[in-house]
């Protein structure tokens, strides 16, 4: 009887440990996957290369500059 009670307590403790281990591992996996999904794979150099470029030139400014005096 005594042995049974002690073994049941030990079983419950082991169950709790295994459940906590399971949840810890699950959460750990979840956050690692989340981090992987959120982290960009594009290098800063490549990101700089693809920075949008506006091909428009303000012709009014050039015309204004042309109209100004230069010595």
């Amino acid at each position, binding site marked *: 009887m005594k*042995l*049974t009670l002690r*073994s*049941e307590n030990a*079983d*419950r403790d*082991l*169950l709790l440990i*295994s*459940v906590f*281990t*399971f949840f*810890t*591992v*699950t959460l*750990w*996996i979840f956050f*690692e*996957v989340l981090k*992987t*999904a959120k*982290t*960009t*794979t*594009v290098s800063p150099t*490549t990101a700089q*290369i*693809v*920075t*949008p*470029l*506006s*091909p*428009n*030139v303000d*012709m009014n400014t*050039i015309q204004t*500059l*042309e109209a*100004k*005096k*230069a*010595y």
Partner: protein
Amino acid sequence: MAAFNYKQEYQRYKKYYLNLVPLLQQPVSRAYTTIIFSFLAISLFGWYAIRPTMQTIFELKREIADKTDLNQKMEEKISALIEAQAVYQDIETKIPVVTDALPTTPDAIRALGQIQSLARESNVQLTSISVPIVPLVAVSTASGQKAGPTKVSDVAFTLAVTGMYPDIKNFLEGIVDLRRVTQIESMTFLLQRELSPEATQSATPTGTKLQVDLKLNIYYLST
């Protein structure tokens, strides 16, 4: 140290193994054991097998999304560059105008020459001119160091001109109208006691000689 005798050791620990058998035959213990080992097995496989697999899956998915986005941005940039090249060819002859307005070096001597020419043209006398600090060349970054973004810097000029009111007016308008980007930071007007012959004849303010102390900022592009 005595050698390990497995027969003797087995006899010694056998009772402990055998005690576990009736315990494991109890339904509650069997259920507990099954659940505990299931959780532990899932955790173990989760950590060593599922985690790396899922990480690889999500990494690849992210990479595909990034590369698709990158491809689109590259195509947009290529089109923009082609368009920019065409625009550049159109305005290539006008580039010196922009360089005149905002040179890449301080070019203080040329700026001084321009002010002198303007003073001569406006018929005013340039009595003094001073430049506290003249960087003869633009401050460049050390070799091997990555160049930073360009910024607009200025050279400060202090000058004094003397002349008739309309000439001074023309001179100031000329400064504003200079192609080189110039900012008048401050102006101080002083009325000179010595009057010109026109002033004695007409006694109008247009005949009065003025002295103007000017503080100018002349801009250039630096890295």
